[in-house]
Structure formats: C-alpha cells, structure tokens
C-alpha cells in the first residue's frame, strides 16, 4: 500500500500524476479520506511552505506543488459524494480602487490558498461598494486589501469606513499590505493586521482566526 509519506513527497515534488495515482491507491486500500488530505496532501504542502518562507524555492515551484495537491483533493472529492474540503477560513481579496498592481496581491492569494484558505480574488481597482457586496455574498472571515500607490492607500481607509457604515466591520477581520503600507498605517486606519510579504500574510491570517 502507498504511504502518506510517499504522497506527501509527491506533492512536495510537484508531481501531479504521481499524486493522483497515490491518492487513488490510498483511498482504494481503505485509507481515511481526511487522513489522506491531512497527512498526505497538506503535509506535503506544509513542507513546501517552509522552504518557500526560507527562500529555498521559488513561486513556480510552490505553484506546481499546489497544483499537484489540488489534483489530489479532486480525487478525494470525486470518491466521496458528500465530502467537504476543510477550509481554514474564507478570505475576500482585492487591490483597492484606482490601483492596478496585481502581482503581489495574487501571490498573497496563492499562498493563502495553498495553505488551506478559501480565497475569493476580486481583482484590481475594487471600490468599497464591491468589497461590501463581496462580504455580503461570501461571508468571509477576512477581508484582505492590497495597495501599491501612495495615492490609493487612502482607499483602504474608505473601504474600512464603508464596511463600518454597512455594519460589517465587526463581522470580519481586515488585513492590508503592499509596498507603501506599514504596521503604523494599519493601526491608524483601523485594520486588524498587516504583513510585509505573502508568507507572513498567511501567518497573520492564521493568528487572526485563532
């Protein structure tokens, strides 16, 4: 029988075909689907996360592992009719109004997803109303905003104010980031968290939801 260790290694190697095969093997020999996910798929991704955080591997390698992990999760889902993938929490993510910088935000989203969060990536140039709409629709635990321009960072405050005015501010945690953003600025505008990069953004989300 295939082992969790082998499965985790296949995720680590970003070997999608192998992940699919091992997941199927494990399930057909009676392994618990939850364990397949936690001890196999997610365990492999956790190792990837550590290497990435220590600057030992690059984003495309993380993405390959994430893709392999997801392929495994799909196999589990198909085998169990009523299987719900456990999520660490739901996050609505977007770059604020007037700002088109995309990549940093997307990297944050990818890291969140590969760590087990469910991410609704709204895109760029998102005005406060759209954030509010998304909060109503997805009922996330966290709203994450990105801004790269000094002339758009104030729209983070507008969004937080709009959330408050709509009575939603207490229902979510707000985290922010981007090149001009600092912890002080986050405190000043009433955000619950700030992170300087994608790996620490994940840590902050985990802390906020604990």
């Amino acid at each position, binding site marked *: 029988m295939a082992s969790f260790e082998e499965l985790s290694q296949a995720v680590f190697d970003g070997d999608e075909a192998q992940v699919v095969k091992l997941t199927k093997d494990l399930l057909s020999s009676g392994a618990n689907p939850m364990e397949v996910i936690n001890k196999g798929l997610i365990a492999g991704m956790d190792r990837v996360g550590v290497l990435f955080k220590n600057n030992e591997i690059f984003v495309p390698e993380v993405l390959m592992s994430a893709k392999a992990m997801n392929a495994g999760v799909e196999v589990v889902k198909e085998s169990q009719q009523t299987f719900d993938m456990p999520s660490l929490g739901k996050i609505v993510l977007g770059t604020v109004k007037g700002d088109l910088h995309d990549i940093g935000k997307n990297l944050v989203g990818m890291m969140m997803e590969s760590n087990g969060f469910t991410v609704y990536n709204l895109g760029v140039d998102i005005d406060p109303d759209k954030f509010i709409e998304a909060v109503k629709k997805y009922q996330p635990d966290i709203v994450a905003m990105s801004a790269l321009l*000094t002339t758009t960072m104030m729209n983070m405050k507008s969004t937080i104010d709009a959330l408050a005015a709509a009575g939603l501010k207490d229902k979510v945690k707000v985290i922010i980031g981007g090149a001009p953003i600092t912890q002080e600025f986050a405190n000043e505008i009433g955000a619950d968290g700030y992170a300087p*990069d994608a790996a620490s953004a994940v840590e902050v989300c985990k802390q906020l939801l604990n």
Partner: protein
Amino acid sequence: MDYKPVKTFNELAIKSLDDFVYGIAPYPVRAKNGMVIGGGTVYPEVNMTLPPMNIDESTMPEVRKQYAEMFEGILKRAKELYAPGVILEVELLPETTMVPKWGREIIKILLDKMKDYEAKYGLKSLVRCTPNDTREMLRPPLMRRGELLDNILLTFEKCAEDGADILSIESTGGKELHDEALVNCDIRKAIFALGVLGVRDMRFLWSNIVSIAQKTGAIPGGDTACGFANTALALAEQGMIPRIFAAVDRVATIPRSLAAFEMGAVGPDKDCGYEGPYMKAIAGVPISMEGKTAACAHLSAVGNIAACVCDMWSNESVQNVRLLSAYAPVAYTEQLIYDCRLMNEAAADGRNYALKVRDWLANSDSKLDPQAYVLRPDIVLEISRELVKEKDAFIATKKAAALAVEVIKRGVDKGEVNVAPREKKWLNIISSQIETIPDDEEKFWSEIQKEVDLTKWRPEEYDLKVTSA
C-alpha cells in the same frame, strides 16, 4: 490596420566598445532650448510623486500645491549646485491622466517655474511628460479604442501644445499575459507576450505618439519594459523567481522596447527601462537610466552598472516626504547632480578616463548577479550584434532569450558571474522551454491560444483572431 515601422535597424549604431560610453550617443537629441542629450554631458533627470493622499476634485488644490513645492525645490537645488541643466519627469498618475485637464495643469505649473528659473538664473531645464497607461483600468483592456485611450492621447497632445519637451509612456500591451508568465516562470508565454502582443501594441501606440510629437514639436522619447522586466526584477529581488529568469526576461524585452524607435521615437529612452543600453547600441538613441539612486522606488542588483552608458541619470520616483535634510525630491536632486558631476568630470579629462569609469561601474556589479551581467557593455554589443540580423520582432525576441541563456551559461562556466546553486537548474529549464517555440508566429499563436486565459485580454485588440474552437 498594419502599423509599419518607419525605420529598421540592420546594423549596430555603436560600432566599437570604445565608442560605447556614457554622455555620448550616436544620434544626440537637441531640445528647443538648446540642451543636447547624448552630446557629451550626462544630465540628471529627477522624478517625484505625491505623498499618501487621494486625488479628486476636492483635493486638487493640495495636489497642485504639492507639485508646485516639489518643482520649486528641485529647480532651486539644481540652480544652487550649478547643474548644467536638469530634466524633470512628471509621471502622471491614473487620475491625472483620466482627467486630462488635471495633468495639463500640473505640467503647466512646472513649465512656468522652469521659464522663471531660466529667465532669472539661466538654469536650463526640460520636462518629460509621461501619462499613465490607463487602458488597463478596463478589464479586459481595450487597447486601440475607447475613452481611456482618447484621454491618454489628449493628455499628450495638450501637454505638448503647452510646451512639454519630451513625451514618454510606460506602456502595458501584453502585460496581462506576461504577469502570468512571470509567476509561473513560463518563458514561452513571456516571449509571446513581449514579441507578439507587446510589439504589436507598441507599434500602434507609438505611431500615435510620434504623430502628436510631429504636430506639436515635442520630442518622442521612448518607452520602457517596466511593466514586464521590472516586475521580474522586483520579484527576483524578493526571492519569488530566479534572478536568471529576470535576466533572460530583460534581454527578451529588447525587440519590444525597440519598436518605439522603429516607429519614429528618437530618445531619450525612459529611465526605468534597464534594457536602455541595448537601445543605445542598436538605435543609437540617448538613454536615461536609474540605479542606486532609484533605491527609493525599488531595490535592484544593477545600481552601478545601470549608469555605465547612460546619457541622463534618474531616481525613478520618490514621494514628497520630509527627510532630515530636505524634502526627498530635493535630496535626490542633489544625489543625481553629484553623480553626474563625477561622470562629466572624468569624461572632460579624456575618453580613456570615461571608459575607465564606465568599466568600474560595470565591473563592480556584473560579477554578482546575472541581471547585471547582461548589461555589461561588451555583452550588450555581442547580443545586439546578433539581434540586428533578425528582421522579425517575434523571432528576435525568441533569439534574445536564447542568447541570454547562452551568455549566462558561458559566464557561469568562466566564473564571470555568480549564480546561486538553487538557480542553476533554471538555465536548462528555460532553454528547453525556448526550444519548444516554433519559428512561425502564426503557428505559435495557434498553439498558445489553447494555453492562455482569453478572458483576461482581447486578441482582436492585437489584430489576432482566435482560430481554435
């Protein structure tokens, strides 16, 4: 419609390594006030931006005040330090481009002050007007029509009519795909984004900018691969992608940036285009560059080497915040002026001294990072010499990437450039990706249209038709 180049470059403008030096370009550019760029003097080009604030009708008085204060501070410091001349670049923000009247007002404030400083103190100055490429505010973007494009062109036209000297833009055609290529380190998609989409959009956009320049007497400066290879540079600096990938991507941007000059732009090329030395080698145009003086805007591994063949020396952009000495734009003006003084002083003692300084600037960086290595003057000439043999911009883009890999491999073998162990395998990964690219553009398009996300961009905006079901 086909936007045909008005010029092609079949041979190098710079014939020998000894002619490749800062301050002197084969085709210098003369401005209306008599300043000559690339005619022997390196000039500072100062960039500035707003501190944290919103831009709307209600804050416009403060916006004007901020810019007026920055312009005044920069010109005053330039005068006090006896700068032989200074260029101020105004990179308009999205808001001040979408409302052309605002951008125009800001440029007008600057032009008035510049006149004042010339009349009172004899300080010569030029303004580079850089509207924001706001086309991508709409997603997927309309590249060749619509109000956003109209307002970019209107901003160019009105500012040029008012007297803006140099017109530039950081254009973004193809970026929608290139972003995705970067985070996946997919050189196939990057080459398609640059060599097909980027080149096509540059030809369209620059044919428009050049015609506005001709009508108004402004100088059509040049573009930059900022949205492409500088994104790669920023990603590499954060350890997100290999430095090797960023270096190869930089070299692959050459045909795209060159397209501006094929359409009639004449330089000075834009500061943040680190591919500038290649523009100077191939098209002979003067170039603006930025390096250690742009650490206020982004970190890089090319702080010195970026200066080694520049004709203007810039700080990319700094926000108007108070430092211990002065406001940041003033402090950066001072740094740029001193850097230029040193380069100009060395050159005044003779070409040999200028070449010595050039080589010190180059060699102090080139061994430490592949992104610096591909900017070494002899390597710029070596790669450029191969690229001018290629008539087709897409094939040239593919060739550029392949040459970059080859040159870096050789550099590693000879111990001329340091590449981290975890990066080395990427040389082979990239070159095997390049080998899968066909030489026929149509064929490449028919292959790649199945691999890309066509909800993010519109092929018809690049004159491409989707053929697969």
